[in-house]
């Protein structure tokens, strides 16, 4: 027990001998929780996860003996938690519409019982390693929760509970550790959030994460276990794009961390996901989703913690052998929380007020992504997608520039595109992906061998058109040759018919890899056919008048998932659309000449 010496915003200086750095403390009559961030002799400095109003010097403090950690076990999925893993639905029931301070509710419900099925091979006397699967709980219809031996436990199994109903605290196994201590295991265990969960070794990421978004999957792919950033000024559609990824990506578990963002966005996710079905399993999307929310009006210190809470839960599901995607919206708010605390501690600011360790913290954070061989010997992955909110849309600011050096896939959002309502506003020139090679192998094996080539041609056309657009803006369209004019128009076609994708249109919202490729190949087909005619002397204007030019813009909304054969047929039969023009402009063949025409 100790006492408060000084209160300065969320920082509390206290007399508390023997407390360790990072330890959780309970402060004052209100029982507010915080963590120790500095020690100096008998005094310690703690930052509180809640507003400190009403605390007074002299009030009691106590150390809780453990660092910030999360509770891991059945009951996580479908839930919404705050930045320190308090269950917000439960808190709503207890304290009403507004979050009261000093409320302590465990993350996992104690009232609920789960049907546990032990692994048959586990007999008493068997040696258990950290990370081994003890048994399973069918948590939702689509997700089987694998109960793991905690990463810091290994020893001889003395007893494993029979199949039956257990709550998360009930003992399901007893293990004799190597030092002779007997440890009881339950369906849940705790893990400190700032320590990465261990695994056997890193694996190479091999499979692309399919998001159903054409500009992402086709042009700037991300792999399962990869790391990506979505930077963009406000209004560029960051949140929309992340929601689309959370909805449609082919991960097995999705963790959405709303870090310092709008309350209504989380409400949107909470209200819309239960109504949507997973295109890969046909189950409601909420069954595989978990939300961590520290909205912008919630305390800043818990914001810093929220991304680690999400990440640790992600690693926990990875350790069960799942492919997990974690979306962090927005890492800038997390960095700002770091800055705010650093400022209060009087640490020397380097760039725009950020502390010197910003870059290393960001790197360590993203490094927790990856595809691994788990302790149990299976394969699992954590894919990390971080939104970045650069002030004024300036990508040279510290958070964006540091992030850019760390991640492999960069989906840059552009204000200009968003203003013209080109969605998703992913800038095809600024974005990049370091995973194209690996993705190409998957596309070749699973969709079409022509993918890499088609992708490259489309990108080339897009970048050429940018050059041409500059010329047009200087001297007008008449300065272009017919070929150039056609290239420019074909690029416009690709932008409208392929890159633009409507999140609100039922058919267009998700595009399967097959549909993505058929559209790409079809549009390139139009470009190629047209170019042939232009070289025969057909004016570009005549080509633009062809009905197929307008019709192709509707392909994406016309051909749904059930009608891929129709799209295949349509894009294969393009020559017909150009036949009349071709006939008109074809040079006379030798036979025609013989006949004297």
């Amino acid at each position, binding site marked *: 027990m100790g006492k408060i010496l000084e209160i300065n915003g969320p920082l509390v200086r206290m007399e508390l001998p023997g407390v360790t750095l990072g330890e959780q403390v309970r402060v004052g009559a209100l029982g507010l929780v915080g963590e120790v961030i500095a020690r100096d002799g008998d005094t310690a400095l703690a930052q509180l996860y809640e507003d400190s109003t009403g605390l007074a010097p002299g009030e009691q403090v106590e150390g809780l003996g453990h660092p910030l950690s999360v509770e891991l076990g059945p009951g996580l999925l479908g839930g919404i938690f705050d930045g320190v893993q308090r269950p917000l639905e439960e808190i709503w029931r207890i304290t009403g519409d507004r979050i009261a301070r000093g409320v302590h509710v465990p993350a996992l419900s104690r009232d609920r019982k789960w049907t546990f099925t032990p692994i048959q091979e586990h007999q008493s006397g068997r040696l258990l390693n950290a990370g081994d699967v003890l048994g399973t709980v069918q948590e939702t219809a689509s997700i089987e929760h694998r109960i793991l031996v905690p990463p810091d436990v290994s020893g001889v199994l003395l007893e494993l509970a029979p199949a039956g109903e257990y709550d998360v605290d009930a003992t399901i196994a007893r293990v004799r550790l190597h030092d002779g201590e007997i440890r009881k295991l339950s369906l849940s265990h705790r893990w400190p959030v700032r320590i990465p969960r261990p695994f056997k070794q890193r694996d190479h990421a091999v499979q692309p994460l399919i998001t159903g978004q054409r500009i992402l999957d086709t042009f700037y792919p991300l792999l399962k276990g990869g790391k990506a950033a979505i930077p963009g000024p406000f209004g560029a559609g960051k949140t929309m794009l992340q929601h689309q990824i959370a909805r449609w990506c082919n991960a097995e578990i999705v963790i959405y961390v709303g870090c310092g963002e709008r309350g209504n966005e989380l409400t949107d996710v909470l209200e819309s996901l239960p109504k949507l079905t997973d295109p890969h399993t046909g189950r409601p999307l909420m069954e595989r989703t978990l939300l961590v929310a520290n909205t912008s009006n919630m305390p*800043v210190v818990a914001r810093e913690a929220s991304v680690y809470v999400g990440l640790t839960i992600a690693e926990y599901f990875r350790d069960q052998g799942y492919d997990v995607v974690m979306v962090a919206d927005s890492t800038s708010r997390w960095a700002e929380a770091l800055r705010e605390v650093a400022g209060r501690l009087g640490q020397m600011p380097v760039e725009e007020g950020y502390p010197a360790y910003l870059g290393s913290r960001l790197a360590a954070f993203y490094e927790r992504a990856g595809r691994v061989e788990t302790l149990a010997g299976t394969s699992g992955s954590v894919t990390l997608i971080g939104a970045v909110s650069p002030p004024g849309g300036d990508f040279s600011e510290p958070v964006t520039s540091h992030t850019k050096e760390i991640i492999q896939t960069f989906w840059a959002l552009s204000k200009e595109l968003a203003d013209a309502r080109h969605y998703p506003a992913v800038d095809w020139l600024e974005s990049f992906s370091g995973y194209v090679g690996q993705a190409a192998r998957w596309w070749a094996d699973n969709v079409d061998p022509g993918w890499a080539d088609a992708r490259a041609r489309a990108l080339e056309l897009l970048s050429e058109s940018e050059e041409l657009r500059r010329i047009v803006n200087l001297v007008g369209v008449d300065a272009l040759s017919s070929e150039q004019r056609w290239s420019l128009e074909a690029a416009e076609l690709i932008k409208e018919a392929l890159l633009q994708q409507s999140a609100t249109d039922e058919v267009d919202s998700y595009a399967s890899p097959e549909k993505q490729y058929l559209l790409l190949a079809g549009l390139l087909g139009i470009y190629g056919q047209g170019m042939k005619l232009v070289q025969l002397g057909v004016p570009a204007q005549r080509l633009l008048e062809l009905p197929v030019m307008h019709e192709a813009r509707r392909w994406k909304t016309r051909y749904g998932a059930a009608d891929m054969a129709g799209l295949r047929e349509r894009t294969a039969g393009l020559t017909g659309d150009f036949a009349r023009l071709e006939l008109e402009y074809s040079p006379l063949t030798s036979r025609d000449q013989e006949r004297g025409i």
Partner: protein
Amino acid sequence: MKNLEFRTASSVRGGLLVMANVPGIAAGTRVSLTDHAGRRRNGLVIRTSDAAVLVEVFEGTDDLDLERTWVRFLGEPFSLPVSRDILGRVFNGVGLPRDGRPPIVSGQRRDINGAALNPAARAYPREFIQTGLSAVDGMNSLTRGQKLPIFSGGGLPHNRVAAQIVRQARLLGESGSEFVVVFAAFGVSSQDARFFQESFEESGALERLVMFLNLADEPVIERLLTPRAALTAAEYLAFELDHHVLVVMTDMTAYAEALREVAVLRGDVPARKGYPGYLYSDLAELYERAGRIKNRPGSITLIPVLSMPSDDITHPIPDLTGYITEGQIVLSRELHAQGVYPPISVLPSLSRLMKDGIGGDFTREDHPRVASQLFASYAKALEVRGLAAIIGAEDLSEGDRRYLQFAEAFERRFVGQGEEEERDVYATLDLAWDLLSMLPLEVLTRVSEAELAKYHRQNRS
């Protein structure tokens, strides 16, 4: 403690007062000061230890005398007395009457800082509010419970636009759904404040109006409390008395500047342009108080007005605001100069909640796609206009010339309208089709073929 007066001020500098030897004072406690002339001032404890207590004085610390300042710690945070009687009243920045009428007497006082709304308790805003302005209703619609700021600049008619929205805002097809208006002005001129007051008077809405005023010549630090007091009143009206509340706050730039002033005094590390790193969180604490709550009939719709310093949308104040609010209505100096009222620049404007509040269930089935088509066509038209400025309009193709005409008509007839003109959303959509019909059928690829058949004038005639 509440009744004890201390005279232990040990130092004072620009708005901050340090009290020595007052142990056990809680953080965030409200403070009442009496200076040597007997005048009352208000303050707040922002840092506390047994040795020293730091007090922020809202009315400023000018001519305070260390030895002759008496300080009482009131043992509670800043709070606002609330009751039904606040309707029709005018308060100052800290919630005291400034209309010459007696103070509000009520057993219920509310901490003006509020408490964060649990995200699980929020209900997603979906109900379309018709403002009668085509540029808003047609393309950047407002939803009940939304926070949608007006980004403006000095000399632009943001006050007139805001007042028009307040006068005309109503729900479709629901009678008796009138809004209660909470108006908070901080750092604005008395002329601007009077303009709003008169505008509300004209619409006969005074008994549905609560005003909180801190004018340009009044204490700066008080501005940090004004929006909080106003939002506290709004929360009471919305979630206790079940009203639909429309909150207009102006000018957020003055608020942020006050915050910067205090931050500098406190010695906080500056982030961008001298604004403290917590400007984002601080603004969010205000803006996020808008919304809807499950199982409660009331709502708070928030329209903050801010003037962008030198019309720069990347300045920290509009920038951070845009990251928190659900869109923005941007006013354009160029349109204003051309005499277009309201000078709403539709392309940088945005309403994030629009997608869920329009369409067949709320307005009309073609609305989402018509809006999308208008955006696309107008963006294309502006591109053509840029080209015409270089090569001359006469060298444009026939198709491009039609875009030029479209842009002109769009700005004059669709965006432009009278200050007293209230267009219902159907008139707005019909007008949109009139304009889209200036363009050839083939280029209208964002609307469906069925809609083209039904609404395009070429098909209808």
